[in-house]
């Protein structure tokens, strides 16, 4: 009787644990990889302000091997005020940094698009560094049906 109860308890806890983990991974709170990548790229103690960066990514990606990504930064792109660099950071890919784009006043418009790989349903962040050194960020979230193979 006792062992039967124990088995039932063990069985009941298994799917729950397995079900809760992906939910937690999808949640907004898991920013460890993003925070670490920002420190590695821009150095420690940098303040990243949310805003000015718009990330366009499909809400559902059927194929994680090729996900269209568009990023636009709100900036006049003049000699006095322009985006220096834009870094794409993944929340849960094996490598946090996906791409780095460098602009100058000659760019005219801080807008770029490409195609990326996503190993999991996750947020895709973009951090823009302006010529004054300030950091701004935005993100998009995509649910990936077929994840890009990483193992």
């Amino acid at each position: 009787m006792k062992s039967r109860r124990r088995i039932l308890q063990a069985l009941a806890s298994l799917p729950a644990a397995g079900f809760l983990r992906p939910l937690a991974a999808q949640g907004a709170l898991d920013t460890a990889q993003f925070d670490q990548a920002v420190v590695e790229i821009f150095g420690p103690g940098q303040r990243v302000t949310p805003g000015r960066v718009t990330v366009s990514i499909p809400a559902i990606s059927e194929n994680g091997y090729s996900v269209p990504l568009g990023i636009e930064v709100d900036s006049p792109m003049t000699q006095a005020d322009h985006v220096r660099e834009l870094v794409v950071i993944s929340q849960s890919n094996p490598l946090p940094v996906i791409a780095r784009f460098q602009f100058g006043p000659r760019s005219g418009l801080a807008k770029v698009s490409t195609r990326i790989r996503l190993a999991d349903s996750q947020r895709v962040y973009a951090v823009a560094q302006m010529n004054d050194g300030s950091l701004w960020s935005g993100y998009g979230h995509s649910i990936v049906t077929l994840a890009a193979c990483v193992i």
Partner: protein
Amino acid sequence: MSDSPTIRLSVPSTARAGELIEIKVMIQHPMESGYRRGVMGERIARDIIKYFRCSLDGEVIFQTEFYPGVAANPLLSFYTRAEQSGTLLFEWIDQQGVTWSEQADLMVE
């Protein structure tokens, strides 16, 4: 890796002075991430294009550093403000330092 990958450019041939133009470029490349395994379970070595650079008569307009998270046949779309006529040079450099390039002429009226 083939010696001469297909490169596709979409650049307007003429533009008005001060006009924003969109440039689209694509290069054929597997962008092997280094995370995949072959049929025997062996790890397939990483082989990616690391840098892309677009310059107008020697002045760099836009640069990119790629990581394995970029999809195969990397496509880029970006902008520049047309100020003077010249030759746009597009260069891709892979992780071994192999370079592929393509040019396009831009006429600013």
